């Protein structure tokens, strides 16, 4: 397991949907998320996201870990957020299926999102 992999997430301001920082911009697919291996780069991206107040709400970093080579959020809260409601598999990004979605659905355990706790503290 690689130490301290991060993904940057937020909600789209106008629509509210969950979005992730991708290599080129922002995407509503977790599969497009850019995996930050460098803490300084992740923090810089977070600062930029906080400045993007016209398009984003509540950006924060989440922890991910490589599981069978796929980046999976370590907290079940962030996995549910990346997938959509578990009671409605047809809703949210999970609807498109695929190996990564399955990896998130099958992942177990791990702690709650440290990124979210930071967000709460900030408020």
């Amino acid at each position, binding site marked *: 397991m690689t130490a301290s992999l991060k993904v940057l997430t937020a909600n789209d301001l106008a*629509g509210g949907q*969950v979005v992730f920082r991708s290599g080129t911009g922002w995407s509503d697919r977790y599969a497009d998320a850019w995996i930050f291996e460098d803490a300084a780069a992740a923090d810089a991206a977070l600062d930029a996201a906080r400045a993007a107040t016209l398009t984003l709400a509540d950006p924060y970093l989440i922890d991910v870990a490589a599981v069978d080579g796929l980046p999976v959020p370590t907290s079940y*809260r962030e996995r549910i957020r990346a997938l959509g409601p578990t009671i409605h598999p047809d809703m949210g990004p999970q609807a498109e299926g695929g190996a990564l979605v399955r990896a998130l659905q099958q992942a177990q355990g791990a702690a709650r999102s440290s990124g979210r706790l930071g967000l709460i503290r900030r408020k």
Partner: protein
Amino acid sequence: MFQYDAIDRAMVADRNAEFRDQVGRRLTGELTEDQFKPLRLMNGLYLQLHSYMLRVAIPYGALTSAKMRALAHVARRWDKGYGHFTTRQNIQFHWIRLSDTPDVLDYLATAELHAIQTSGNCIRNTTSDPFAGAAAEEVDDPRVWSEVIRQWSTFHPEFTYLPRKFKIAVTASPQDRTAARAHDIGLVVRRNREGRLGFEVIVGGGMGRTPYIGATIREHLPAEHLLSYLTAILRVYNRFGRRDNLYKARIKILVASLGAAEFGRLVDEAWDGMDRPRADLPDVELARIRASFGLVDFRTLPPRSERFEAARADKAFARFARNNIVPHKIPGYGIVQVSLKGIGEVPGDCSADQMDALADLAERYGHGEIRVTHEQNLVLPHVALDDAPAVHEGLAAMGLATPNINLVSDMIACPGLDYCALANARAIPIAQAISETFADPDRAEAVGELKIKISGCINACGHHHVGHIGILGVDKKGEEFYQLTLGGSGAEDAAIGHVLGPALAADRVADAIDKLVDAYLAIRQPQERFLDTYRRTGVGPFKAAVYQDAHQA
């Protein structure tokens, strides 16, 4: 049913125009998120786990067919085709876009609906009896007083920035269907020995991380002084309630720290010093409000309906009639309860098509009235027993005829971590698993009244503290675990439940409930509900049932 006058209409229109302007300024960057968030919340719009959520008020749980159709339209046009009825008699739409919200609110206003008093540290939507105007034993129509409170509290300048949110319940029946004793203020309408109408005033109940059953600070407040006395309570709270600690800001903490007697004394002091005639409602306005309810055009019917009795030959209808229909104050009528707890379904969810069908049934057979219960069900309060078979048929066609009111599968569950940004654990899948476990309707009926209430976090939106069996989702070392409590009640015999033992993993909860029920069936005495047996025996046999093969806990 209360109808808006020109002032009500203008107030809602002004508010919607103001919020449209605020949304516009947020989207163009004139307002920052920090500036905008409190404004958005004052209009019922939350940012949740996956999306924005709009909570629409259903004042004291009363809907008309027209209002229900408007909700269906919102669900279809701006959401994903469904809504979620909450434990506060409101409805939540879980997939609303911020940029659409001004249009949604304008549309809702055409049906006299809004999102005012659904968020923020103000006096929230008043809870009332879903059987109002239909229950035989009620002393007065609680909607009258709920509407009085709505008019008084809406945008009340003195009480818009309270230390914390504030919830009032009004009930007028001996059977409490509002959880009055778990509210910041619970009002129980009573007549005293002289026959004068008044309120038992209960203060300081609440759930959350520090649950309390409210204390009675006045046995019989003369009804005409309701508003001045409420003002006195709110003034004491506004002045002495804690603003330094979010978790100690509710009135229950103030009442508990002062003691109910001292709190009552402070209220009396504030009340005595007040210009009461100025604060209390003029009789003429009360009469106007009262006149707007009670206009139901009931027919004169024989108390026994032959058509109803004949329909009981059908097993499904007989079961529905036993569990979901209760007597009405008018002979020949019944109160039809519509369960939103289909086996394996999401408690409180209702599709747009179901909403439309209910609106049609209410219009055709129910004087156009629909009620929402705090237990996340719906009620057609005025159905002629002759029409009950047709109503049952219509409900069954829409998957709404589950005959389980007050039975084990009629659970409350908050949205939990499937939707809510505050949750620690999911609540809905637990409810679904329990529901499947008790899918056999014969067994559910044999078990009898059993109220299971599930919350996904300690904020207790799922009322777990007052469940006969309460289930609280917790995060235990990064996994979803569930703590069981027993012996709570939100009804007239209100009580806070006691923790049974160590929290259980998600996949053990339904099985544990099964064991609790088996333990109850083995030791119950005639006529005892689960709650009664628990109160008689204490926790012993139940603890043994769940933890006897423990060490796997």
